[in-house]
């Protein structure tokens, strides 16, 4: 074979290889294109449009009118309800997220033991997590009924006269916190998976070293589970701050705006008062607030989240 022929053959192989790679790339793009198209059309474009809309006054019925920063000025300086609703949402989140993490974890630990009927218990605890939000809201509306509800009936057995859970400014937020605890099963499943991924030899070694139950929990379980807890914290913050269905169905923000969560207020502005521009401004401020919170949480992760892989790399 001449040198020229050899070179020609090689370049032909290279061409074939490039063409194969290009085909693979095109195929990959074709495969993901439904999702990409969906994302661009149904998420990215509406997001950009809503950002633009936040500088307009628009009631859907008539053409948008450019108002500059007026919507943002109103949001921060003249309308008291956005900050009121944000405050309520934050208070609710501060109460609800830690409780959900702790309860989810405790239940997962209990269900990570060898007891009879384990699968049944796991199913029972998980069931509420798969129910529709509207059905759950209606169910809890009955449970919270002060005169006939299950909760107050149970309290009466112990001689306690329960409050008007949803009719009281003081008790309406605790009612929603209790209600959210009911669906703690969703987080429990994830904790359970995390718990089962912890190598048992760590516990065996600790036991040989004389570690008691608490020491094993704080020195092995929690550090090894910290990535899972971190994940639950991040998703919990986003999920909890977005509370809407429960208050929309059960209280419509009342009484006296005591359960006017941020998204309900946004919904009212958009779909009841048809102030789409103002609602878009509300949405963007909320998005940025959650983004900022998420960034802060990520920044704190290095102080308390333990990744085994990173630790091995360090060694």
């Amino acid at each position, binding site marked *: 074979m001449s040198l020229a022929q050899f070179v020609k053959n090689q370049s032909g192989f290279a061409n074939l290889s490039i063409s194969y790679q290009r085909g693979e790339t095109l195929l990959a793009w074709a495969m993901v294109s439904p999702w990409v198209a969906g994302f661009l059309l149904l998420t990215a474009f509406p997001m950009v449009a809503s950002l633009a809309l936040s500088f307009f006054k628009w009631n859907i019925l008539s053409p948008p009118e450019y108002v500059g920063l007026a919507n943002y000025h109103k949001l921060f300086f003249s309308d008291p309800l956005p900050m009121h609703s944000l405050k309520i949402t934050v208070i609710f989140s501060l109460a609800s997220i830690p409780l959900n993490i702790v309860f989810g974890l405790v239940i997962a630990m209990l269900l990570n033991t060898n007891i009879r009927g384990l699968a049944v218990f796991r199913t029972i605890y998980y069931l509420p997590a798969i129910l529709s939000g509207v059905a759950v809201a209606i169910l809890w509306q009955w449970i919270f009924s002060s005169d006939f*509800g299950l909760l107050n009936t149970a309290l009466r057995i112990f001689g306690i006269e329960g409050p008007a859970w949803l009719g009281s400014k003081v008790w309406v937020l605790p009612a929603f916190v209790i209600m959210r605890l009911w669906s703690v099963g969703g987080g429990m499943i994830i904790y359970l998976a995390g718990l089962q991924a912890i190598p048992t030899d760590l516990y065996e070694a600790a036991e040989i070293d004389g570690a008691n139950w608490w020491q094993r929990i704080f020195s092995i379980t929690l550090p090894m589970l910290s990535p899972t807890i971190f994940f639950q914290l991040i998703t919990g913050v986003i999920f909890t701050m977005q509370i809407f269905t429960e208050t929309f169905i059960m209280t419509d923000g*009342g009484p006296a705006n005591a359960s006017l969560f941020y998204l309900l207020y946004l919904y009212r502005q958009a779909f009841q008062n048809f102030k789409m521009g103002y609602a878009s401004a509300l949405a963007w401020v909320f998005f940025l607030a959650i983004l900022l919170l998420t960034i802060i949480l990520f920044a704190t992760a290095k102080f308390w989240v333990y990744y085994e892989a990173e630790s091995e790399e360090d060694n």
Partner: protein
Amino acid sequence: MSKKINMSRRDFLRLTGMSSLAAGVYTLPGVGSVLAQDDQEVTIFFWDGPPLIGIREKALAPFDDAYPGCKLNFTSVPGGPNQGYNDKLFTGLAAGIPPDVFIIEIGLLPQFLKDDLLLDLKPYVDADDYDLSQFPDLAIEAYTHEGGIYGMPDNVASIAIFYNQDLFEEAGAMLPTAQWDDEGWTVDDFFNSCEALTKTDANGNTTQWACDVTGWDKVWQTWVRIFGGQLVDDPFFPTECALNEAGAVEGLQFYADLRWEYGFAPRPEAMAEMGTGALMQTGRLGMFYSGSWAFPNYREADFNIALGHYPSGPGGRANYVYYYPLVVPKTTQVPECAWNLLKFFNGPAMETIIREGGLQGTSFAEQEKWFVTDPLPPANKHVMLDAARHFVAPDPVLTNWGEITQIMQAQIDLLLIGEERDAKVVCDEIVRQVNPLIAEGQWRTG
């Protein structure tokens, strides 16, 4: 014997693409109907759930036969205006393909009129010499703008007092009057009846309440009017909120005191979440406020239930009547069919709807003929018709009345849940918050 057709992948794709294109073209506005037949499709939107959705659909079904050339397309988005209906309607409006006839809340009508979105029905009314006097004057006046008429009533739904006649008689209490112009049944009579009806046990716990104190805006607004107050200075051309004037404050204070001062009405911890139904059905409540939609709940009640008017006070007797309009968008391609549908709805269809227990009705004659004569409980159904005839309290005509009521309601809640006991404080705060919004919502001058 079947013959196998061989088709290449390319042919299959071509066929699929052409079918999709044909389907897409067919669904373009107007094309499908032109291709299908010469009938003009007229789409109507309601927000009813069961059973009314079925009653309306059945009542409107003969429309196609009554008006050859028009074909009805009936759609209902169950749950009311804020449960998906408005989303669907406004999306259609924004896309330029609204239904040809649709119901809207009366509070939205000013915005639709301001944006010049609706078809003026006056030429059709005049051409057919259509009798508008069969409807409440105030409703038609509310649909009227600069000489044009922009809606026809969907229903006229009065609110009345529903009372447990057995409990009243047992307590020796005066019954709510069923005659609008009755000189009796004043606020004092109402108070005395409440006193007689309210019962407590040996421990001082209330076992039977006289009345309901609900946060329902139409009820507290009626109490404002009974005491001579009003929501705004002029409902058709509002310039400021009038809720802090003496009559309004007195009415709200009386209403709240029924619960907090006198204990005639259950406190929130006794009934806020469950509404009044359970207490009424179990014979622990003397009276409450509702409309004809509550009738089916009491058809089989084991007590005698009847309707009565609100008491009269310094401002006379008052009431509230819902008068949501059915409107036609200006852009409709089938205005004649839309008008025919409105006539059919308020004519033959309405008779069926009333007789099947769906609505109170729109015209006075039909209400008298079918609604009032319905023998099923509750008794005194003519109270509803009376209330519609004497209806004098339209919603203020502002483009943002819905938003204003949200602000008002949050403050009224404070009074009704006992967080604030002084109605004047609440009313002053409402006026402070609402007046700038009234200025924002004005869109026409008197």
